[in-house]
């Protein structure tokens, strides 16, 4: 208990003595967390939007002839071999004709004289509703085109391609901003602590000479790094929340938000980001305090 109070006292003294660089580091960590979590939030919501819009998504494989039941089973097993799906429907030429006629409703007389098998039979594949189902559609479509007897595969190709590109871009941005977060937190904290160590070298030497353990000397610096990481990441997340609220209120009309549920980061994700920032900062401190061992 006494050692904890001494360590906390030393940490407080460290923070007071070097508050200017500490403040700079705090802002650097805050900004890094804000940038990273902003892109992460955008990515997560984009996937939500994709999932919502993909609810009615289906791939239609047009076939050259009506498949007999045995071939239908063969098609089914091949499709399921590639990926799990929600549903597979086989539509014969006649069923397609009937559906088309129904759609035409009062104008169905335009079909008079047209043979009932003029439309090609098809397989309707309903992919599983998952967050990245849209991203998988392209690959699924490519696979379905290789099925025997497949003439063409149809889906909202252009829209999905654009969406897929956007998701890919977001992933790259997340990786880059994650790297920025790691570099900023680790290096900035490491250099601030190193500066602190350098300015207090005589005191640390003396502590070592009077019998202080390495942990006794090192702990306040580790705590200091972790504290900057925790406070910086908390401030970053709070700033992101305020930004999220502001965008929701100012930029987008409530109509869109009622259609697509834009949400903030979940508690586990928020906790993970804060924990990662705290640990990275502590790691930066740990690295810079290694020379203490040799005092």
């Amino acid at each position, binding site marked *: 208990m*006494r*050692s904890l109070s*001494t360590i906390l006292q030393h940490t407080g003294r460290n923070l007071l003595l070097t508050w200017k660089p500490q403040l700079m580091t705090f802002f650097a960590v805050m900004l890094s967390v804000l940038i990273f979590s902003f892109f992460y939030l955008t990515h997560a919501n984009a996937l939500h939007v994709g999932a919502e819009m993909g609810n009615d998504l289906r791939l239609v494989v047009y076939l050259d002839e009506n498949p007999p039941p045995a071939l239908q089973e063969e098609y089914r097993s091949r499709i399921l071999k590639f990926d799990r799906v929600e549903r597979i429907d086989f539509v014969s030429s006649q069923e397609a004709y009937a559906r088309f006629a129904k759609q035409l409703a009062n104008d169905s007389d335009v079909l008079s004289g047209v043979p009932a098998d003029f439309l090609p039979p098809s397989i309707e594949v309903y992919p599983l509703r998952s967050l990245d189902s849209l991203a998988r559609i392209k690959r699924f479509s490519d696979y379905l085109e290789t099925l025997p007897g497949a003439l063409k595969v149809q889906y909202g190709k252009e829209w999905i391609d654009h969406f897929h590109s956007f998701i890919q871009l977001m992933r790259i941005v997340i990786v880059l901003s994650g790297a920025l977060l790691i570099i900023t937190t680790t290096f900035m904290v490491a250099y601030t602590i190193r500066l602190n160590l350098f300015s207090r070298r*005589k*005191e640390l*030497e*003396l*502590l*070592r*000479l*009077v*019998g*202080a*353990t*390495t942990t*006794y000397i090192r702990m306040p610096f580790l705590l200091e790094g972790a504290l900057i990481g925790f406070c910086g990441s908390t401030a970053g997340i709070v700033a992101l929340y305020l930004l999220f609220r502001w965008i929701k209120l100012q930029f987008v009309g409530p109509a869109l938000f009622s259609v697509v549920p834009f949400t903030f980061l979940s508690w586990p994700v928020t906790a993970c980001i804060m924990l990662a920032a705290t640990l990275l900062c502590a790691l930066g401190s740990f690295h810079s305090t290694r020379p203490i*061992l*040799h005092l």
Partner: protein
Amino acid sequence: MHQDLPPPPIIELIKVSKFYPPDVEALSDISFSVAKGEMVYLTGISGAGKTTLIQLISRMEKESKGVLDVAGFDLGKLNHRSIHLLRRKIGVAYQDFKLLPNRNVADNIAISMEVVHQKKSNIAERVRTLLEQLNLGKKYATLAGELSRGEQQRVAIARAVAHHPEILLADEPTGNLDAENTARVMSLFYQLNRQGCTLLIATHDKSLYRVGNRRIMELRGGRLLSAGTPFSTSNIAAPVVKALS
């Protein structure tokens, strides 16, 4: 029978040498031992190697050759992670004081007790007692950087003895003191010695060791010349030294 046995050595050096690059030999083949509870003076002119010897014993420096055993620790085998165990048994009054100028006198003294997690009330009491004893009672809250050299020296001594060390190493402890304060410091040293503390005092102030019959070791040019008493400085017959020199 048991009572006749000499006290065990608490400091023992066997053929210890210290070289600094490129080819400076600070200490050469030093061998001696100091018994537990003994008070020994280490004399010699400036540059004789007194400070280097104290630095070796407190493990501020590592010996180049030889064996050093201090308070039960073989310093040659002592690693960085365990060094605090040795230093908690030793108090060192450094020649350059090593005070923290921007911290007050009480904080400077308390530091050696804080690292062993002593109670705050005990620390405050011990600090006050020592300051009174060394005629610094009114300087409790004064910044160390604002003290005179003599006052700083006494604060450094107070810090060295505050945690009741088993061994006290004092490097020129009275170099900046007047006669009255020298007497106070020596009185404190004798008191510690009576309580069982082993003292090794490096000094070239003859007035300190002229009185009494404490053992005196003389260093010259990095070599141990004698380890006798004030009345027989050339008497090398005293302790283990004779056999090893």
